[in-house]
């Protein structure tokens, strides 16, 4: 099962404890080589990844070995893509990882490409000049040293929330617009340019690069048995400080969010779930505990809402953004999300009519599962969890009151002034 024919490189030991990905020693290629050793050329990578139990760190949490095997099985030439787009406004971990350890990510991309038989590799990034320069330099170093078997192409993602969605990514890499498509056939069968495409989040690739060097048992030394390994989390603490930290899976949420008082925690970003703080503080960062509550670890985005904010108003701001970011391809999403956003905006003002709640419930039911991607589903998850977590506040709003501080600034990072909703095809390229 576990292939222990690893190349031993003198002076390189496996990281003990944490950090693993975000530690020092990754800045340039020579330092990366000293810290982690050379790129291993391993035959049975997929088996090793399966033994390690690595799951995707991009949000869906899909078992990585299964994805690799599915793509490897396809006929013809494949494409391997590292997804560093991080389209979630509240998430910063991928940018941080790419900045601190670009070579780990690129190692992972090479290893994944070799494992599935890809002759084309891409790294998908949002527009960010510094980060792009960092990656370009890293790729140049690797090219000079002859490290990469497959040349890596940097592809820019448009600044859209859905740009990082698997089929939107495949479409963009294939030269088209970054809009999701109906998943028949699935992306692993027909993706970028019609070729079977492997899409992996950059953090997943970085873990993969370390598992290939140090093995599955090492990977399992942190985390839980069911959810092994470390996870990079973006935590927006209630005191206003945002922290990107690599933590073991299964760590209690309370430990991640600091000590400032909070009323509720948003778990999983803008397609995630609001959980009241008393419940949230004791929950571990693990799907086993979160799924029964309708939540998931997702891409590790956590936000603790301070008590002086209005949870409904914050959610309304996010919903307005999510509605504007619909790709506009599917009738239910195109029609439903703006209406949901408006109804929630009405609810977010004191003196709202009960009718908004009925409308919200009806529209939530109408859009779920009826889009080509999970944008409507994620939006509805946010809506329903907000209504549950902030039910007391909802009652107050219906009676014409609001317990929040009207002077408090908006808390959740949502693109504000200067944000223009996409309205032309070029906005999706």
């Amino acid at each position: 099962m576990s292939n222990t024919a690893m190349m031993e490189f003198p002076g390189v030991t496996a990281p003990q404890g944490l950090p693993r990905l975000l530690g020092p020693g990754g800045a340039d290629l020579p330092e990366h080589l000293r810290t982690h050793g050379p790129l291993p050329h391993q035959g049975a990578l997929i088996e090793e990844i399966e033994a390690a139990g690595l799951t995707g760190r991009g949000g869906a949490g899909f078992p990585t070995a299964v994805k690799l095997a599915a793509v490897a099985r396809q006929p013809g030439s494949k494409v391997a893509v590292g997804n560093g787009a991080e389209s979630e406004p509240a998430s910063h971990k991928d940018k941080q990882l790419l900045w601190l350890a670009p070579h780990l990510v690129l190692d992972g991309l090479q290893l994944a490409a070799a494992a599935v038989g890809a002759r084309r590799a891409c790294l998908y990034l949002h527009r960010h000049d510094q980060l792009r320069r960092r990656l370009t330099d890293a790729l140049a170093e690797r090219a000079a040293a002859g490290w990469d078997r497959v040349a890596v192409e940097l592809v820019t993602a448009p600044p859209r929330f859905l740009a990082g969605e698997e089929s939107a990514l495949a479409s963009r890499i294939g030269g088209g617009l970054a809009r999701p498509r109906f998943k028949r056939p699935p992306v692993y069968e027909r993706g970028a340019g019609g070729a079977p495409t492997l899409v992996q989040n950059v953090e997943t690739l970085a873990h993969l690069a370390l598992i290939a060097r140090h093995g599955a048992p090492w990977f399992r030394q942190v985390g839980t048995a069911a959810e092994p390994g470390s996870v990079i989390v973006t935590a927006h603490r209630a005191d206003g400080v945002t922290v990107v930290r690599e933590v073991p899976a299964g760590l209690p949420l309370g430990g991640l969010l600091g000590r400032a008082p909070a009323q509720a925690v948003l778990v999983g970003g803008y397609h995630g779930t609001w959980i009241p703080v008393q419940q949230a503080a004791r929950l571990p960062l693990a799907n086993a505990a979160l799924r029964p509550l309708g939540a998931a670890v997702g891409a590790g985005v956590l936000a603790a809402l301070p008590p002086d904010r209005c949870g409904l108003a914050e959610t309304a701001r996010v919903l307005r953004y999510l509605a504007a970011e619909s790709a506009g391809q599917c009738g239910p999403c195109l029609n439903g999300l703006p209406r949901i956003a408006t109804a929630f905006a009405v609810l977010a003002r004191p003196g709202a009519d009960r009718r908004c709640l009925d409308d919200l419930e009806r529209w939530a039911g109408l859009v779920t599962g009826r889009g080509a991607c999970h944008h409507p589903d994620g939006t509805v998850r946010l809506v329903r969890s907000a209504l549950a977590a902030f039910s007391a506040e909802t009652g107050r709003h219906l009676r014409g009151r609001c317990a929040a501080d009207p002077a408090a600034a908006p808390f959740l990072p949502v693109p504000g002034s200067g944000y223009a909703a996409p309205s032309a095809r070029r906005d999706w390229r």
Partner: protein
Amino acid sequence: MDTYLRVDPTACSGHGLCAELLPERITLDEWGYPIISAEPISPALRAHARRAVTDCPALALLLERTG
């Protein structure tokens, strides 16, 4: 091995023929888009379902066999 009727929501523009041709499985939402029930298509309905698939002006419907 069951047959299911699916719609590609990106292709569908809400013509609504399908709801007329297969009312047993398809209703239209308040915006004119089809809500397709999740039940499999029984052999009795298969001919009607196939007609809905062929007649859809946007070619947005498909029958798929899973199981």
